[in-house]
C-alpha cells in the first residue's frame, strides 16, 4: 500500500467583535486603569461584567467600579508557559476576587514559585505600560501586602470608548487525506487519473473517497479514467478572490472524465472564455511540478451529445 499523506493545516482568522454597552465600558475602563463590574438584580457585583443577569435574565447596565486589589480564591501553577500566554516566565493561573466584587476574575499572578502562592493571599493589579482596551491591559497580578485600594470614583463613562475588538482564532491540525485520496494523488504524479469503482452500483468515484456514499460500502477496485472528458456545466468567474492567484475572467467547470461516475471541478483555458459551452470536449494540461492539472483545454473533438452527460451535471 502506498504511503498515506499527511500535512499541516492551519486555520487562522482575525474575527472582529462589536462589544455592546457592557463589554465596551469594561474594556475602555481597563485602558483607563479602572476595573468595572456590573450589579445584578439581587445586588451582587459581577467582575468581569455581563450583559444579562445569569439568574433572572434581566438586562444589566448598572456598572460599578471595584478596587484593583483583591484576594486569590484558587490557583494552579503553570511551570511551562506557552507562546501567547500573559507571562513568559512560570506563573500561577489565579481566580481573584477584587475588593468590592462578588465573583472572581481569571488572570495570572507573577510569583517566584508555587511555594509563594496560596489561596487567600492578597494581590494587586499590575497595569500594562501600553493599554488598548483589552484584558491584557492588566499585565498580571502581583503579591500585595497593603490595605485594600480605593476605587478611583469613575462613573463608568469614558471619552472615545472602545466599541470593538479583534480576536484572532487559530487552529492547528494535521491533515491526512486517507488511503484512497493518497493513491489518487500518487497516480496524479504520473499524470494519470485513477478513481475507485463501487462494487454495488458500479459507479466510478473520482476523486475516490474509499467508500460509496450512496451504497455505504467500501470501494477498492482502482479504475483509470480520462484523460479526456466533457464539460457538463460551468460558470464564468468575473470577480477575483483574494486567496486565489487566478486572473479573471476564467471558466470554472464541471468536467466528467471519460469513465467517471460524477464530474470533478476544474478550470478551462486555451479557448476564449465566452466560447466555452456545455458538451465541450477537453483534456488536462499539466505544468512542471504541479500536483493537479493546471487547467483543461479543448481537444478539438465534436461536442458531446447532451444525452451522454445529462446525468453528470
Amino acid at each position, binding site marked *: 500500500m502506498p504511503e498515506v499523506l499527511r500535512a499541516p493545516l492551519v486555520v487562522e482568522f482575525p474575527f472582529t467583535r462589536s462589544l455592546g454597552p457592557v463589554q465596551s465600558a469594561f474594556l475602555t475602563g481597563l485602558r483607563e486603569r479602572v476595573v468595572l463590574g456590573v450589579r445584578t438584580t439581587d445586588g451582587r457585583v459581577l467582575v468581569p461584567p455581563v450583559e444579562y443577569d445569569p439568574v433572572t*435574565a434581566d438586562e444589566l447596565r448598572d456598572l460599578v467600579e471595584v478596587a484593583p486589589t483583591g484576594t486569590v480564591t484558587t490557583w494552579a501553577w503553570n511551570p511551562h508557559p506557552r507562546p501567547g500566554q500573559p507571562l513568559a516566565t512560570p506563573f500561577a493561573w489565579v481566580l481573584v476576587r477584587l475588593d468590592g466584587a462578588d465573583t472572581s476574575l481569571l488572570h495570572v499572578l507573577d510569583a517566584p514559585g508555587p511555594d509563594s502562592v496560596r489561596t487567600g493571599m492578597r494581590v494587586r493589579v499590575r497595569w500594562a505600560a501600553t493599554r488598548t482596551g483589552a484584558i491584557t491591559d492588566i499585565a498580571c497580578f502581583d503579591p500585595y501586602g497593603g490595605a485594600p485600594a480605593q476605587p478611583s470614583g469613575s462613573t463608568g463613562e469614558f471619552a472615545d470608548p472602545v466599541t470593538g475588538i479583534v480576536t484572532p482564532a487559530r487552529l492547528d491540525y494535521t*491533515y491526512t487525506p486517507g488511503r484512497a485520496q493518497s493513491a489518487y494523488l500518487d497516480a496524479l504524479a504520473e499524470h494519470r487519473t485513477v478513481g475507485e469503482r463501487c462494487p454495488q452500483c458500479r459507479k466510478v468515484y473520482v476523486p475516490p473517497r474509499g467508500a460509496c456514499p450512496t451504497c455505504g460500502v467500501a470501494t477498492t477496485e482502482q479504475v483509470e479514467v480520462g484523460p479526456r472528458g466533457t464539460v457538463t*456545466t460551468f460558470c*464564468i468567474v*468575473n470577480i477575483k478572490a483574494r486567496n486565489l492567484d487566478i486572473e479573471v475572467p476564467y471558466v470554472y467547470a464541471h468536467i466528467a472524465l471519460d469513465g467517471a461516475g460524477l464530474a470533478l471541478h476544474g478550470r478551462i483555458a486555451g479557448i476564449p472564455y465566452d466560447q466555452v459551452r456545455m458538451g465541450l470536449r477537453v483534456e488536462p494540461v499539466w505544468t512542471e511540478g504541479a500536483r493537479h492539472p493546471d487547467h483543461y483545454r479543448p481537444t478539438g473533438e465534436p461536442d458531446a451529445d447532451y444525452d451522454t452527460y445529462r446525468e453528470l*451535471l
Partner: protein
Amino acid sequence: MSKEPVAVVGIGQTKHVAARRDVSIAGLVREAARRALDDAELTWADIDAVVIGKAPDFFEGVMMPELYLADALGAVGKPLLRVHTAGSVGGSTALVAAGLIAARVHGTVLTCAFEKQSESNAMWGLSLPIPFQQPLLAGAGGFFAPHVRAYMRRSGAPDTIGSLVAYKDRRNALKNPFAHLHEHDITLEKVQSSPMLWDPIRYSETCPSSDGACAMVLTDRAGAARAPRPPAWMHGGAMRSEPTLFAGKDAVSPRAGKDCAADVYRQARITDPRREIDAVEMYVPFSWYEPMWLENLGFADEGEGWKLTEAGVTELDGDLPVNMSGGVLSSNPIGASGMIRFAEAALQVRGQAGEHQVEGVRRALGHAYGGGSQFFAMWLVGAEPPST
C-alpha cells in the same frame, strides 16, 4: 398517542442591516428573542427550553454559542440545545424546537437563529486551504452558478427569468420594514444591467450580507389557547439530508428536497400543493433558485417552474406569492435566514405580516436549504389547528 399540535404564538426579528456595530452577538439575538416574547405576551419564566441555531462555526468564530448565550436567552436552569445544518439551520432549529412540543417534552419553547455577517467571513469559512486540494473557487456564488446554468439548459428557460425574481423580491422588500435592502429606485433594467459576477449570475441576483436574528415562541394547545394573538399552527414539518457530491446527484432538483416536501405534504394531507398552499417563503439566495425550487417542491412540473415566475404567479398579488418579505435576496443573516422563512410563513397565516400581508392566506410553506444543496428543512403552517 397522537402528537401534540404545535402553535407559533410569538415572532420577533431584528431590522436586518449590513452591520450592527452597536450590539454584541448576544445583544442581537436577545433583541429578536425579546420581541418574540413580547408578541406572545410572555416572560423568560414562561419558557421551558431554548433551541438555537447559527451559521457554521468558522463563519463567526463562535464555537459554542449555547455556552455564551445562556444568560442572554434566559436559559439558566433550562435545557439549551444548539442545531447545526449549514444554511438551512434556521429551519431545522425551529423543527427541533417544534419536535420537543409535539413529543410533549416541553410546553413552551423559545427558538432563535442569528448571524452577524459583518463580524463573520463566509467566503473564508467556505474556502479553507485544505492540503493536496486545488483551490479553484472562493465563496458560494461560483459554486451555485454552474447549477443555475444546468437548470437553464434543462428547462429551456429564457435568461431573463433570474432578473424577474430579483426585481420582484426587491420590490416586496420595500413593504417589509425588517428587510435589509430597501432599493427604492429599483427597476428591471437596473437588475438586468448589473455586473455579471459568476455568469450566469448577476450582482443584483445575489443575496446581501446581513446582520440579523429571528426568534419564535412555539407552544402546545394550552399555550395557544392563552395566546393574545392568532397562532399559526404547524401542519407538517420535515428535514432531509444528502451528500454534497455523489454519483447520480441531481444538483438542480435534489432528491432530498423532493422527499422533504413530500413528507411535509403527506403530514399536512396536501395532494396538490399548487392549489392548496396559498403562499411560500423559500430560501432563494440566488434568484434562479425560485424557479428551481418551484419544481423541486412540487409547485410545477420539471422544466416548468420558470413559467410561473414569468407569468407573475409568484408576485405579491399573484396566485402563488413567493417571498412576500423580500426573501433571502433582500436580507441574508445566513444563520437566521431559514428561520426567517419559517417565521414569515407563520406571519402570513396569522395575518400579522403588515404591508406585505397577502389577503386570505390559510396555509403557507416555509423552506430552507443549506450546504451544497444537501440539507433541507420545511414546515407547513395553517391558520386553523391541524385536524387530528
